[in-house]
């Protein structure tokens, strides 16, 4: 396995569905301009998932809201917050019951699209219903 430095202060997102690592970076808003030291390891063999991506971000403790957003594209992801080289919090990404301001309705005829209103969704089974147009979408469609 590739060697990646242990981080002192930051976040490790593990068990990302293989191929979704770059999307997680997008959700976190990390790019060349943000200047964080980032390691994205892709296609790591995993017993649970076959293959997975792992992301390590130095200097950023990601918020609960962002953790929810990660769940939309990778429901099995876990988020580890690290301070002084120790894991201080481990959170399992989970599809939230409701989404407010996270995600956009993909229906072009939805008023939330046309008026650029913040998206509002609630979970029904494994899918989200838009509170405006009342259509149902797969979680990943909202990003």
């Amino acid at each position, binding site marked *: 396995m590739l060697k990646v430095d242990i981080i002192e202060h930051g976040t490790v997102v593990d068990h990302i569905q293989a191929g979704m690592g770059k999307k997680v970076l997008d959700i976190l808003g990390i790019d060349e301009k943000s200047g964080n030291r980032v390691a994205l390891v892709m296609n790591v063999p995993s017993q649970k998932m076959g293959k997975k991506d792992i992301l390590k971000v130095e200097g950023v403790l990601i918020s609960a809201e962002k953790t929810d957003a990660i769940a939309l594209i990778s429901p099995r992801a876990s988020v580890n917050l690290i301070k002084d080289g120790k894991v201080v919090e481990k959170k399992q990404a989970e599809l939230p019951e409701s989404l407010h301001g996270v995600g956009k309705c993909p229906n072009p005829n*939805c*008023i939330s699209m046309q*008026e650029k209103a913040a998206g509002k969704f609630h979970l029904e089974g494994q899918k989200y219903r838009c509170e405006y*147009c*009342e259509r149902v979408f797969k979680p990943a469609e909202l990003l």
Partner: protein
Amino acid sequence: MDLISFRDLDKGTVEKIFGIAEDMDHQLERKKVEKLDGIMATLFFEPSTRTKLSFQSSAERLGLQVVDFLADRSSLKKGESFTDTIRTVDGYCDVIAMRHPAEGAARLAAEVADAPVLNGGDGANQHPTQTLLDLYTIRKLKGKIAGLNIHLVGDLKHARTMHSLVYGLGMFGAKVTMVAPKGLELEEHIVHEAEKKFNFKMESRDSIDLKDADVLYVCRVQEERFADKYEAAKVKKEFTISADYIRKGKKDLVIMHPLPKLDEIPAEVDAMPQAKYFEQARNGIPIRMACIKMLLEGA
């Protein structure tokens, strides 16, 4: 309270609306309607003369004053945002009845307006007063909804109110049979949602057979939905509700249609006692009166 989506209503609330509508019916019959105070604004961002007239007439019957926002002639053309328009109109009235081509528009309006909002149609999404008047009509003519055989016939996929109607029929325990041309069936997720929520099963058929039907609800089949002209003509013929079809059905069959109807129901049927679609449209008045009253009184 607002009235945005049939999905927001529980059976108790729907029955309460029916109760007020019944009372309105009696008051209208006696030509003595208890008057309310206030102003209703109608905001129709897309034309629908019938629905708007029905809302306006209902408000006038209740003694309300009506102000009408003409979308084509006012600030919309100047690029004012939808929510700004709603906030402005909100200052002029006590209740808003609106229609908009975008889905969710009434929900967003209700979020920004203090006045209660009545959804008169938002894109392909909801038109709750239509569903209420459809159910009210069945209940009024048949005395009940539970256990009745309701046949929904025609283009169920594009009929605007079909998804909330099957939801409402499920809520009241009707037996539903869907008869649609191939490719124009009601979308599966809509069928599933209603079936799961109300724990019942709808039947699907591909041809009309009215033998056991108590209610026949007809939707238009539009030629534009077919690529093949011959196929369109054939299906249109098959889905035209002729007087012959009706004579083979129960004597007390009730035929409904959301109107306007074209040739899917030939004029000869209009005179038959089974034809109830004009009465159905009339029921829009007590139902909309009931909704306006309920919203204004904040109950």
